[in-house]
């Protein structure tokens, strides 16, 4: 869980960098070039396969853990106060993760499927397609909701992954927790800013 999760976090940061190129006021040249490199570079294609395997492994493992953990408490408490001892984020990783999964499916069927499988028509560019889709308010809302939940997921996930890997030291724990929360925040703000910016400035 920790290894696949952290791998996905690294991917997200790279993906965020690429997407921020959308904001470069050059009519999409930098973004189109970036996207083109992404589809033609052999190394990137290999990483892409690893990424799919990573997501798959993460989801399959999450499902297995959730099923096992449900089985570990067959009879529920009549009265329970989990909020007294743990955060909402930490207790709802399955929920936030499932919302992300739904989003990933929508996201991939829109972009990945269209560009890689169907291919672009004549004068269409990836930049143009992205801008076009974010003129739709529903699309913007789906993105924002998904990334807020991704932020919730990562808020617990990053520091949790360190603990899983055995990295826990009284001196560094506050730094790990704060960095994890900050990264979650940056990823959420970065990814939600882009559709909002496009919707409000290029409408």
């Amino acid at each position, binding site marked *: 869980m920790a290894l696949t999760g952290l791998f996905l976090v690294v991917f997200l940061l790279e993906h965020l960098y690429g997407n921020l190129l959308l904001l470069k006021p050059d009519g999409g040249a930098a973004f189109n070039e970036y996207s083109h490199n992404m589809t033609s570079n052999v190394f990137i294609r290999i990483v892409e396969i690893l990424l799919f395997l990573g997501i798959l492994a993460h989801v399959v493992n999450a499902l297995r*853990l959730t099923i*096992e*953990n449900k*089985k*570990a*408490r*067959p*009879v*529920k*408490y*009549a*009265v*329970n*106060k*989990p909020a*007294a*001892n*743990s*955060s909402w984020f*930490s*207790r709802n*990783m399955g929920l936030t993760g499932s919302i992300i999964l739904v989003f990933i499916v929508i996201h991939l069927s829109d972009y990945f499927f269209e560009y890689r499988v169907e291919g672009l028509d004549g004068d269409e560019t990836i930049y143009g397609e992205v801008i076009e889709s974010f003129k739709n308010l529903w699309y913007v809302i789906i993105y924002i909701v998904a990334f807020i939940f991704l932020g919730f997921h990562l808020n*617990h996930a990053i*520091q*949790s992954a360190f*603990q*899983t*890997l*055995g*990295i*826990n*030291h*009284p001196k560094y724990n506050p730094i790990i927790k704060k960095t994890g929360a900050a990264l979650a925040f940056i990823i959420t703000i970065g990814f939600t800013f882009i559709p909002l910016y496009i919707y409000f400035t290029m409408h």
Partner: protein
Amino acid sequence: MNLTLKIWRQKNKNDKGRLETYQVSNISPDSSFLEMLDVLNEQLINEGKEPVAFDHDCREGICGMCSLYINGEAHGPDRGVTTCQLHMRKFKDGDTIYIEPWRSAAFPVIKDLVVDRSAFDRIMAAGGFVSVNTSGNTQDANNIPIPKDDADKAFDAATCIGCGACVATCKNGSAMLFVSAKVSQFALLPQGKVEATRRVHNMVKQMDEEGFGNCSNTGACEVECPKGISLENIARMNREYLKASIISEDEE
């Protein structure tokens, strides 16, 4: 104090069980939670009814027998105490108090509020020991120098009383805090290092076989543990386990 109690009653392992309502009155705020239950049981016996079965032994917070899930929290609303050390002044006159047994597949209910925690014993038997020859040639423990810091941490881990509150409170029913405390108390000391790899493997294997859930680092156990066992121990066990998986020379 006058209180309404909603207590889990279950005849035996196979009975379905249900919550039943009882009233107790004139409870001293200075009495302990178990003393309050003693008053209830006396009342029930005088009425010719079956008293409520609950676990207890030392009643001073060291044996780990008492084990109640009180108003949605393991060992009740107070921190750093077991149920036997929980005072009634933590409640208000007229309160309704829900009392349930630990809920875990690995801790089946035997009767009412009593659960079978022998799963912990089997985990200990799988590796929670050091093999020393005690046939007349034991060495003075002080002959082996141990850094003060390590000794302190080992001692802190060894204060775990095996009460099971960590399992009861964990949303996953995971026993990681208990097992990690027991792994740590040995792994930190020279005498325990000898069998460290095998120990962590065997104890974790037994833990999984008993049907405990998987740790997802919510941290609830550390908050509810009456002995303040730290999550650092779980990280240490994870390190020990990783190390054992990578460098172990055992065949399996």
